[in-house]
C-alpha cells in the first residue's frame, strides 16, 4: 500500500501537476460527449450494470447517464471552473486578482480519497472528475454493494486519455486497512453517506486534513395555488412524475413529499390522481392511492412500496414549519408559483436551508454549477497562495 501511494503521488507530480487545466477539462469534456453516444460500448456496459446491479429500469439508467454527462461537456466544465474560481488559470500559475490587486494561485491536494457509501452512482463519477480538474490523484473506495459504474468510467478514461486515467485508483471495497492508510496520506478526504458513516469516516481523518462530507439529503416539491390549474394539470403531473421516476425515488434530489397549496383550481385528489396516472406511465406499474395523514394527504405507491406523499397545506407559509425539523438535511425544492410569489417563497426556503430551488421536472438534472449541499464544490477543495507585491 505504501508503494501504491508513493507511486500514485509521483505519477501525479509527473503527469498531472503541470498539465493545463483547460487541457484537462477539454479531454474530460470530450470523453463525456462520447458517453452521450448511444453506441459507445462503455455506455452500454454501464447501462447493463445499472439495470442488473442497481436495479434501475433501462429507461431510468439512460436518463441518469444523460443527465450526468450532459453537465460534463467541455463548455459546461468551463462554466463550472469559471463560476467557482472566476479565473480558472489560477490552477496553472499565479494570476493577478483585479479586486485585491495582488497575485494568487490555487493548488488542488496531491491526493484525494473519495469514499462512497451510498448506491446512487452519479456523484461518484462527478467526484473523480472534479478531483482531476484540480489536478489531484484520486483514490476511491466504493461500497461493497458497488455497482461498478465508476470502474467502467475509469476504464473508458483509460482508453481515451491514458495519462489522466493513471492518476485514479479504486481500492478493494472491503480493504479497510488500505482505506485508512489512504486517508492518512491524503490532502483531502471526501465522503458520501449517511450521518453514521460520515461520523465514522471523519473520526479517522487527521485534524490537519480537510474533510468534506456529503450527507443524505431530502427534497420536496411545492405547487402554489396559482401555479396549478385544470389546463396545466396533466403537464405538471407529468413533470413531477419525472422527478420521482428518474432516480427511482432513491436519490437526495427525489421529492419525498409534494405540497399543494389549498384554494387553487385543482383539489388534492385531482392532482394526486393525475400524478398517480403519470407515475403509472413512467414506471409502467399499477399505482394505488391511499388517503392518509397528516392533515389532508394522499400516498401514492406501487405494490406495497410507498413512493410519494401529496399533502394539502392551507398556506405555503406552513411549509417552512413542516420542513424545519429537516433543516440540516434539506436539499432541493421544485417550486411552482407565480413570479412574484416564487421569489418570496424562495426567500423563506433559503432561510431554512434549502440549497437548490428548481422547476418541476428538473429535480434530477442539477446544473454542474449548482452549489452541491449549499457549498462551493471545487473552490472548497483548494488551497490558495497569495503573493503580495
Amino acid at each position: 500500500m505504501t508503494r501504491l501511494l508513493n507511486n500514485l503521488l509521483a505519477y501525479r507530480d509527473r503527469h498531472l501537476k503541470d498539465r493545463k487545466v483547460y487541457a484537462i477539462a477539454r479531454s474530460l469534456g470530450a470523453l463525456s460527449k462520447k458517453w452521450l453516444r448511444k453506441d459507445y460500448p462503455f455506455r452500454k456496459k454501464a447501462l447493463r450494470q445499472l439495470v442488473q446491479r442497481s436495479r434501475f429500469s433501462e429507461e431510468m439508467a439512460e436518463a441518469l447517464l444523460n443527465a450526468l454527462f450532459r453537465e460534463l461537456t467541455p463548455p459546461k466544465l468551463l462554466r463550472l471552473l469559471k463560476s467557482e474560481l472566476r479565473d480558472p488559470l489560477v490552477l496553472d500559475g499565479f494570476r493577478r486578482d483585479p479586486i485585491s490587486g495582488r497575485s494568487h494561485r490555487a493548488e488542488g491536494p496531491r491526493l484525494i480519497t473519495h469514499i462512497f457509501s451510498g448506491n446512487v452512482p452519479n456523484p461518484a463519477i462527478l467526484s473523480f472528475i472534479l478531483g482531476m480538474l484540480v489536478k489531484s490523484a484520486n483514490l476511491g473506495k466504493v461500497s461493497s454493494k458497488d455497482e461498478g459504474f465508476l470502474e467502467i468510467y475509469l476504464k473508458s478514461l483509460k482508453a481515451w486519455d491514458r495519462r489522466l486515467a493513471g492518476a485514479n485508483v479504486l481500492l478493494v471495497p472491503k480493504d479497510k486497512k488500505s482505506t485508512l492508510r489512504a486517508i492518512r496520506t491524503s490532502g483531502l478526504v471526501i465522503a458520501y453517506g449517511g450521518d453514521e458513516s460520515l461520523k465514522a469516516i471523519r473520526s479517522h481523518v487527521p485534524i490537519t486534513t480537510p474533510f468534506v462530507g456529503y450527507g443524505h439529503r431530502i427534497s420536496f416539491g411545492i405547487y402554489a395555488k396559482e401555479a396549478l390549474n385544470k389546463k396545466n394539470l396533466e403537464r405538471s403531473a407529468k413533470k413531477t412524475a419525472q422527478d420521482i421516476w428518474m432516480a427511482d425515488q432513491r436519490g437526495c434530489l427525489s421529492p419525498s413529499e409534494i405540497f399543494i397549496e389549498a384554494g387553487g383550481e385543482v383539489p388534492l385528489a385531482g392532482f394526486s390522481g393525475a400524478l398517480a396516472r403519470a407515475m403509472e406511465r413512467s414506471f409502467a406499474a399499477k399505482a394505488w392511492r391511499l388517503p392518509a395523514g397528516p392533515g389532508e394527504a394522499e400516498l401514492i405507491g406501487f405494490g406495497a412500496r410507498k413512493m410519494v406523499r401529496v399533502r394539502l397545506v392551507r398556506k405555503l407559509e406552513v411549509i417552512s414549519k413542516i420542513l424545519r425539523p429537516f433543516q440540516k438535511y434539506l436539499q432541493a425544492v421544485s417550486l411552482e408559483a407565480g413570479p412574484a410569489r416564487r421569489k418570496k417563497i424562495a426567500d423563506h426556503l433559503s432561510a431554512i436551508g434549502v440549497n437548490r430551488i428548481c422547476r418541476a421536472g428538473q429535480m434530477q438534472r442539477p446544473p454542474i454549477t449548482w452549489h452541491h449541499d449549499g457549498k462551493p464544490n471545487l473552490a472548497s477543495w483548494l488551497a490558495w497562495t497569495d503573493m503580495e507585491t
Partner: protein
Amino acid sequence: MSDLETRNLDSEIRAFIKKFNAAPAPEKLFQSLAFKLFDYQFTRNENYRKFCLSEGRRPGGLVSWREIPAMPTIGFKELVLATFPIKNAARIFKTSGTSSTKASADAPLRGAHFFDTLALYEAAITPPFKAYLMVDAQDFSFFFLMSSPQESPDSSLSYMMGVVNKAFAGQKGKFYAKKGAIKNEALVADLSRTRKKVFILSTVFSLKSFLNFLKSKKRSFTLPKGSRLMETGGFKGRVREISKPRLYAECEKRLGIDRHFCVSEYGMTELSSQFYDTTLRDQFLKIKRKPFKEGPAWIRTLVIDPRSGRAAKKGRAGLLRHFDLANRGSVLAVQTEDIGRAVGDGFELLGRASGSELRGCSLNYEEFLNS
C-alpha cells in the same frame, strides 16, 4: 362488548375454520364469506373504505373475491385500520420496524394491527400448526428461541408461540430470549437434559446466533429422532437473505435435526393466519414433490404482476397478496412486498421486493416524520 353483527360474523368465521381445518374449502363458500367480510369492513373501517373508493371498488360491485381491494402493508404504518374504535382494542400487535438501527418504538416506523378480540386469531393458529408440524407425533419438549408473550406483548409471533405452548405443550415450553438475546448456556443445559423429542421454534436470527454459539464452544447434539425445527423470518430487519439450505445443514450438524424436519413458517403481523412449508407433511403423507408454502383453507394468496396490478401468469413471479378471513377486525386483503411464485395450492417464497430496500442518498424521511 361487540355487537350482534360482529358476533354473528365471528361465529360464521369460526365455523368455517372448524369445518375446513384439515381440508380445502370450496371456492363458493370462501367467496361468500369473503364478500360478507368485505362488506362489513367497508362499512366499519373508515380508512379502508376511503382506500376502496379511491380504487373505485365497493361491496356489491365485485365478481370475485380476487377483486377485493388489497391494503398495502404500508397502510398499517400510516393509518388506523380497524373495524372498531381502537380504544376498545384488546391487543395491538406491532411490526418489527425497519432495518434501521435508529428504529425506535415510535409509531411511524412500526405498523400496528388492532384486535378487539383474539378469539379468531387463536382459533386460526392451531389447526395448520398441527397439520404442517405435528402430523406424525404429539409428544415433544418445546424450546422457544424468542421472547415470551409476557416480555413482548406487542409481538404477534410471541403471542402465537404462547398459544402453541398452551395448546401443544401444556404450558411447559420455555422461552429463551431475554431482552433480544438468547440465553445460550441455559438452552444448552436444558437441551442436554431432555430425553423426549425436541421441538425448537425460533426466528432465523436467534437460531443463527445459537448455532454460532455452539460452533464457538465446539458443542453439538444428537437430538432424538423425530426432533424438529420451526423457523421464521430471515429477510426482514436485522438478518437478510440467510441461505436456508446452509442453515438447515448447520442444524443437522450441530443439533442432529434432519433437514426434512426443518419447516419454515411465513406469517406477518398484518395477518391472522400463517403459512408453512409442506416439507414435513408431504413426507408423512408420502407426497413426492418440491415443498412449497401452504396455508389453511381460510387464507388464499394471489401472485400479483406489479405492472398490471392483476394476477400474474401462472408460474411467474410477482408480489404476494393475501386474503385472510380471520382478519375480521382490520382488512382481509393485504398487499405485501414479498415476492413469490404460485405453486400447487400455495406459493414459493422468493424474497422481498428490492426497491424499498435499495436506498441511495436520500434521507429516511420516515425517521423524521412526526418527530
